């Protein structure tokens, strides 16, 4: 399906941690959706496909609020933070098969003013990956929350490959640096030093506070249509050259894998790169789902940007900063822009490929990679291009 589906609209709300602002999660999804529809030059009723993020909104309420009387395709991918990019795969299949004409992918949440992530995810077994497995074998021992799950992997990586705190810090610093060039980033105006990073309190040792993503309010959305329809729309389309999703094995349990570091991305990335006919080294930038710093290291390795064990060295010396060999999360990511469950990574990639990223524009960006990461290591990846 090389080059046959495109992203033709993007929308974002304000991103904030603001005690005087308490939008509902649904309102954030709708606001982002409306902006994406306007950006595409479409009318709401042109949308006949909906792929809401799992657990944050649903197709029925989105359709009712946007006046969508004929929804031909409605589906939700249950892969946590890997869902938006995985939804791009499903949406591409829908528009290229003719099941839908224009598919809207809305996401976002009141992650700051509403129920905080740390409260909901950790106390409701049904909301956790693994469900009953977590309830019966993890939570009784105090293993209750995402930074704790992934810290188990980070510690092992540090022991096996010598990955250091300063290298994880290089990721946090790069994201914070990029946020300074993003007017919508929550951490704009709040630069960070390595000393700040190392002095931040331990949260889930070896993770410090500044290894962890933000809790914010915000919504983002994209619209997918076929290459043929994209030509008639308002904006220059961004082409989905390759997109794939995958799961670790087993996906419902995180400690017993024979290969502890193998994640969904490990199998998905080669498929996406092959479909696009490009290599990781061809990418002008990468937006990597950065729920926690080590997951950036792990995904860079498993996607093939470097070899396993070399991710710590890869992120050093400015390589992943703007101006470096592979700018990563040019918007500031979940760590320093806002936590928009992965959708803002797609939106930022589209901005870069349209040449609309302002002071953080990667010069001449033509090819970008976006990943998603969720649950116990579900993965997704899209290779996007400014031309087909």
């Amino acid at each position: 399906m090389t080059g046959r589906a495109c992203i033709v609209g993007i929308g974002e709300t304000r991103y904030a941690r603001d005690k005087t602002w308490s939008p509902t999660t649904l309102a954030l999804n709708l606001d982002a959706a409306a902006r994406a529809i306007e950006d595409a030059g479409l009318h709401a009723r042109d949308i006949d496909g909906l792929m809401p993020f799992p657990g944050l909104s649903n197709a029925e309420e989105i359709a009712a609020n946007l006046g969508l009387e004929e929804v031909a395709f409605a589906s939700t991918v249950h892969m946590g933070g890997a869902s938006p990019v995985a939804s791009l795969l499903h949406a591409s299949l829908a528009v290229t098969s003719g099941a839908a004409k224009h598919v809207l992918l809305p996401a976002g949440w009141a992650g700051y003013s509403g129920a905080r992530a740390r409260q909901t995810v950790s106390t409701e077994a049904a909301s956790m990956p693994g469900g009953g497995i977590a309830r019966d074998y993890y939570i009784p021992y105090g293993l209750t929350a995402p930074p704790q799950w992934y810290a188990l992997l980070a510690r092992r990586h540090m022991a096996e490959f010598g990955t250091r705190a300063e290298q994880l810090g290089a990721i946090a610093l790069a994201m914070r640096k990029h946020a300074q060039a993003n007017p919508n980033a929550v951490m704009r105006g709040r630069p960070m030093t390595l000393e700040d990073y190392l002095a931040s309190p331990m949260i889930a040792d070896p993770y410090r506070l500044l290894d962890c993503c933000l809790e914010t309010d915000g919504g983002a959305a994209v619209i997918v249509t076929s290459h043929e329809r994209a030509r008639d729309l308002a904006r220059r389309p961004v082409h989905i050259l390759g997109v794939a999703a995958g799961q670790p094995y087993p996906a419902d349990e995180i400690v017993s894998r024979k290969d502890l570091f193998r994640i969904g991305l490990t199998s998905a990335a080669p498929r996406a790169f092959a479909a696009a006919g490009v290599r990781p080294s061809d990418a002008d930038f990468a937006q990597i789902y950065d729920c926690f710093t080590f997951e950036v290291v792990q995904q860079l390795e498993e996607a093939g940007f470097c070899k396993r064990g070399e991710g710590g060295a890869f992120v050093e010396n400015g390589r992943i900063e703007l101006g470096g060999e592979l700018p990563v999360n040019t918007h500031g990511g979940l760590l320093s822009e806002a936590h928009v469950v992965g959708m803002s990574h797609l939106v930022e990639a589209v901005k870069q490929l349209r040449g609309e990223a302002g002071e953080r524009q990667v010069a001449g960006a033509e090819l970008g990679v976006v990943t998603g990461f969720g649950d116990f290591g579900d993965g997704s990846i899209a290779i996007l291009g400014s031309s087909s």
Partner: protein
Amino acid sequence: MTARPLPQLSGLAKEFYGFCKARELRFQRCSACSAWRHVPRERCGECGSADFRWERSSGRGHVFTWVVATRSMHPAFPSSPPVAPVVVEMDEGVRLVTEIVDCLPQELVIGMPVEVVYDDVTEDVTLPRFRRQA
């Protein structure tokens, strides 16, 4: 403080924790291909067989990795003293999440030999925890 959550004693979890209550650590072992497995599953992921035995473990293993939960993310687990969930790799090859009872978090070392102890946390539930091997 909220009481610590307990496993739900139903299905295969009821069997696993039932053995613990009887002071036996047992894991599933496939009757067809002899592969050990944990967490309990209906079928063997290696060969697909639904036949298994609950086979007695040596009770011995080593520390594989751990996290120190210095920021509480659950009302039953306060920040201080922090809980330190540990992954132990058993001599049989399976891994499980547990805690080490005789060791401060800062004393944990990857590869440290440990052995099972049984903690009767309620009248009905016994959790397997571990201590340093003598």
